[in-house]
């Protein structure tokens, strides 16, 4: 085995080991890296009341209610479990029923969250507005695009 080849193998093995080490660290500290929990994960975790948390999911259909001028209430869901959210402030443009969202806040009892910050999450689908109109015209529009 030539010296060059030995060096190459040495470098590649070192890289592979470093990579494995960092992947192991990252996956074992998963709870510190995830940006949010889903409602089901949150119930599993049994996070105590009044702890700050972020929770992500979809705004449940026909659950959005305006309480007063900029006070809102809605349900956040992952289609298995849902939480009731109260929020006072300005909503992002993309926020609507059926849309993905991430909220920051705390649990004030078992099922209620007081949100202090709301982010809209958008998915990886991009489509021209004109095509949406066409699809709607032919009633091909699928709910999942929303």
């Amino acid at each position, binding site marked *: 085995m030539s010296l060059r080849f030995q060096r190459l193998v040495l470098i590649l093995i070192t890289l592979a080991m470093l990579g494995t080490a960092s992947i192991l660290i990252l996956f074992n500290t998963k709870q510190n*890296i995830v940006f949010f929990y889903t409602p089901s994960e949150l119930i599993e975790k049994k996070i105590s009341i009044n702890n700050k948390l972020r929770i*992500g999911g979809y705004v449940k259909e026909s659950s959005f209610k305006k309480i007063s001028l900029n006070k809102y209430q809605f349900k956040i869901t992952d289609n298995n479990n849902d939480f009731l959210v109260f929020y006072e402030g300005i909503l992002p*443009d993309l*926020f609507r029923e059926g849309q993905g969202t991430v909220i920051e806040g705390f649990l004030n009892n078992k099922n209620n969250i007081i949100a202090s910050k709301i982010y809209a999450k*958008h998915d*990886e689908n991009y489509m021209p*507005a004109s095509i*949406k109109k066409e699809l709607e015209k032919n009633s091909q529009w699928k709910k999942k695009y929303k």
Partner: protein
Amino acid sequence: MFKFLLNPNSFNKFSDTIFKPLVAITSIILVTGLILVYRSPLDYQQGLTVKIMYIHVPSAWLALLTYAIMTIYSIISLAFKIPFGFIINKAIAPIGTVFTVLCLLSGSLWGKPMWGTWWVWDARLTSVAILLIIYVIIIFLNQTFENREVREKTIAIFILIGSINLPIIKFSVDWWNTLHQPASVSKLSSPSIDISMLQPLLVMTVAFSLVGLIIAILRIKVEILTRKNYL
């Protein structure tokens, strides 16, 4: 045939022959790309804001591509003692830095109207911020160590260690819950982006790569001259 990738003299000869046609082609593709972006349709959900994508995504891809090239050259240079790799590492690190900054800035401008925030510490955004820090450290390392050989090897090893960040950036959106959406183009099923928007995106990516390549050629040539003590 690919000697110009490893040998400074062949590189000089090769780049001299292709440089003028390259500049011409780049200008044409860049102008075409910008026209395509101008004429591209509005998104059904994001409206006009979607056009930030045509800057954001190519910059992000090129920031990663530049680092990948530096990683490959670091391995080759360290293993086979080919100094041309060190020249390339020094020359293209600032280019990668600029693409990373462009990616972060345009992403921030895109995040405010869409997500409702300039910045969050989710896995994707944080790992790209780390990439920027790594790039800046590489540039700073070029100013350290009087002894050139020690300096070059140190930088190459640092680049190799930093390359662990590349798969983390790529897969961060799949491994963890992030606010950033998952990949639209580079996924196994067909891209979830309409062809009328994919086209300008790809043309802009080619244009960005060619602009990067032109700057890279100029910087590499300067670096070769500097080492020959002509400058």
